[in-house]
């Protein structure tokens, strides 16, 4: 899994969509909101665009309760963008909802989602 070094980073995971914390390593930490559906994507996109500048993004998907195709499509584009720029995408964790959605949409592999952590 890419970006494992950041998995235990000091950036605190927040449930809110506005959580962009910058870890010491130059990694932007973006927490996906609990309701991560179409209405939240414009804000998320702006956040991710800001994070791109750091070259590395650590996504925290542990709080996600509801997610839709719009969100996963955005994440796929992020992944592709980072690949093209030579950046990295890493996960601090992903909820069951996020995993299930990515699996159904055939996007789990490209997103390199970690399995949901057992409680």
């Amino acid at each position, binding site marked *: 899994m890419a970006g494992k070094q950041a998995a235990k980073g000091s950036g605190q995971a927040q449930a809110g969509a506005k959580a962009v914390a910058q870890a010491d390593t130059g990694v932007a930490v973006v927490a996906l909101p609990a309701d991560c559906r179409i209405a939240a994507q414009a804000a998320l996109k702006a956040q991710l665009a800001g994070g791109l500048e750091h070259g590395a993004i650590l996504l925290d998907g542990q709080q996600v309760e509801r997610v839709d*195709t719009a969100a996963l499509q955005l994440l796929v584009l992020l992944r592709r963008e980072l690949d093209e720029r030579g950046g990295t995408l890493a996960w601090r964790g992903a909820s069951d909802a996020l995993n299930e959605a990515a699996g159904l949409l055939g996007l789990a592999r490209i997103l390199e989602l970690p399995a949901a952590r057992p409680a």
Partner: protein
Amino acid sequence: MVNAALAQFQQVFIEESLEGLDTMESSLLALDDGGDAELVHTIFRAAHSIKGGAATFGLPEMSSFTHEAESLLDEVRGGKRAIDGGIVELLLRTVDCLRGMFARARAGEPLNDATAEGLRGELAAMMGRGTAAGGLQARRPADQADAWTIRFRPHAGMLAGGNDPLRLIRELAGLGELAVTAELDRLPALDKLDPTECHLGWTIELAGPAKRADIAAVFDWVEGECELAIEPKHVVAATAPPAAAAPVADVAVARAQRETSAESGTVRVAIDKIDGLINLVGELVITQSMLDTFRDGVDASRLALLEQGLAQLARHTRELQESVMGIRMLPIASVFNRFPRMVRDIGQKLGKQVRLELVGEHTELDKTVLEKIGDPLVHLVRNAIDHGLELPAQRRAAGKGDIGTLRLEASHRGGNIVVEVSDDGAGLNREAIVAKAVQRGLIRSGESLGDEAVAELIFQPGFSTVAVTTDLSGRGVGMDVVRRNVADLGGSVTIRSTPGKGCVFTITLPLTLAIIDGLTAAVGGEHYIVPLVSIVESVQLKREAIKTVAGGGELFRFRGEYLPVIRLHELFGCPDAVRAIDEGLLIVVEGDGARVGLFVDGLIGQQQAVVKSLEANYRRVNGVSGATILADGSVALIVDVAGMVRMQSRRKVA
């Protein structure tokens, strides 16, 4: 209804549908008079709502019936068919038929009858097909395979439209094992992405015996919003699909569970009326808390404040009373609305041209009065067209226009509601009435009568002046019944006729049945209330003015006629009452077209009485219409004058 608790909505549905039918009817009539296209939409909407709701609320017969009418309307609406008199006629009959079906639904009876079946056939014929258009032919057997390939590519706007491919694919997962491959070839760059658009596509392998129809059903809402291909991987022989244990039985269940409750006594109340009540109650609470400060005693310095508080209490109580009564008040429009149709039908039948004018439709009446005033009004209207208005030729000969005018006007006058039915016809035919009255033995030949007295004759039981009984008025109901019905509501009917110019029937009704103005009379230790509207006069008589007739009845002379005396103390069995005629008082009352004298000890005063039903609280008592509670907390009975007059005349016969 599947859920019995939902039966309540059936009642609401029936109520709103009946209103919808009224709208349909009035709009159809307006359309017939050359109304605009918006009317077609209004009519369509009403039919559509009934159709949509009927099956939902357990009335499927009605739904399929309305469907025919709706289809017809849809063609009119879409400009595929011009509206003409024939269609209006057919739709008007449909409205009638639906009303009947709703009435049967309320009574829990079977909805369809011969009329409904016939009409449905007519509607179908109008649409150019037979009744037997009973649904589409069964489709070709569903393709079945044990594995499918589904190629699915949404258009960009599908996400914003609320159809999430994730949901669709999740539904597919319910049909079998999925292997999903996302197609990313059309994805834009991140900064070009509108996150509300969808640029992904999928190829989905579905393993498991699924029917094409089941797969297609998943995508039913997104037809036209995506590219979709559903291909079987292995075709299996088309075996007969097992008969689906489908939920067909719902209808029977619905019928069985449907409440057969009759019309419930509900009133719709405008929100502003309720707000008014809430305000008043608020005022009362304030007054009460103000008065509460006097609990510990009143000193002289605060007397003025106390008086003010009591005055406020009195005012608010009165206002509250009026507002509460107002809740029972509904516009007379609901009664008036039936007339355009009726007048049109009767006019056509009789070859008379009638213009109907409705005035004061917003005048409000007590709900009970409203429900009971319909029949008398119908009779007066039929009567006016049948006997009052002339045929066009006769009108021309009389120098009037071909079209007769019939006017219904409601208004408030003092504490009463006045409803007038007037026409510009020929007026009462004095000679014909007198001749008929002589023939019937109501008056003697050669007796000279004033116009008023002649007009009064038509209110006599069994009176009719028309040689040929038409099927309109000839229902065995005469003006006497109209008068009795109105009298039962505490009202009166008068007639004013001008030869050659027309007739005016005036119905005067009390604003409400819940409160009456009455005169309180003492009889022994009891108090009785005599409604003010029925009192003619009260007189004190000398002993010798009373004549005793065979059988023990007493009569007295009043304005040239002998009236019977009803001693209330005898009728109601009151001890310690005044027995000598010259020591008590006779209240001359009129009811049911006759007068009697009620003998009481004396009068106490005039007051408003809130009527409490005796029937509801005790049982029905002859000669008593209700009870009221007096200021001291005791109960007084309200005299039923019309009932007493009837009792008296029965006694006379017996």
